[in-house]
């Protein structure tokens, strides 16, 4: 486990480098995480995915599968991969302040 300082706040991370405490998260932190992942500007479409993931996680206790995400959030597979290049599930989860998704799909 490690601690990082982002926007002047000390944050605990889990072994995968994701935020340890869901409640530490806010949009400012999300933006900083996004930059670290190579996404310079978060658009409304990014936020749509992030908000949906956080909502699902709070209800179900795990991040949604890509299939569920694309069916329910209104962002299709192609767009999802364009928004979060090189690993949408993991990246979006990290930016959303959630642990790495456990599912295989």
């Amino acid at each position: 486990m490690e601690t990082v300082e982002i926007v002047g706040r000390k944050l605990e991370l889990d072994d995968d480098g994701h935020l340890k405490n869901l409640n530490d998260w806010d949009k400012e932190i999300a933006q900083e995480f996004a930059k670290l992942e190579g996404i310079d500007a978060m658009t409304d479409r990014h936020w749509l995915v992030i908000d949906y993931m956080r909502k699902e996680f709070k209800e179900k206790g795990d991040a949604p599968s890509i299939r569920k995400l694309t069916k329910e959030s209104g962002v299709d597979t192609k767009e999802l991969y364009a928004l979060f290049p090189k690993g949408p599930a993991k990246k979006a989860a990290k930016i959303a302040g959630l642990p790495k998704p456990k599912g295989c799909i």
Partner: protein
Amino acid sequence: MSQPIEKVSIVVSRGSLEGVYPGLIMANGARMEGIEATLFFTFFGLDAIIENRMDGLSVATVGNSAMRMPGGLKMPTILGAIPGMSKFATVMMKKEMEKIDIPPVREFIEMISDAGGELYACKATVDMFHLTKKDFCPQVNDIISVGQFYEKSAGAQIIFT
């Protein structure tokens, strides 16, 4: 330090439901992790991308010594040959897969293609079975020879299923 995997080439050689899915799950999983994925369908594996067959794949119950009955009791292999047994096993497996969000073959192929995965049909099999590009679903990028497959697999880990 070991190098992370950056590219996989997955060969799907079987046409049963349980023969096709591992390759699809691995290809989709690779894309989810940001790993480049190429799928190469050969022999009966081609059924997974043939337009009028891909929705009808079934579980092979004959000769499958690992087959279990609902409840977990081992199924004598001879029962696998009973008419309707494959259909029954197929319905059961599809139901369980839907529960854990594994899509049907057609949707899965679309998903992998939309995710940037590439799909190819094996030329030798296409010729042997007298198929043409028209027989395949639109997601198939091309029909390629084994030589082209190796070219496209440069730098990739090759996985045979």
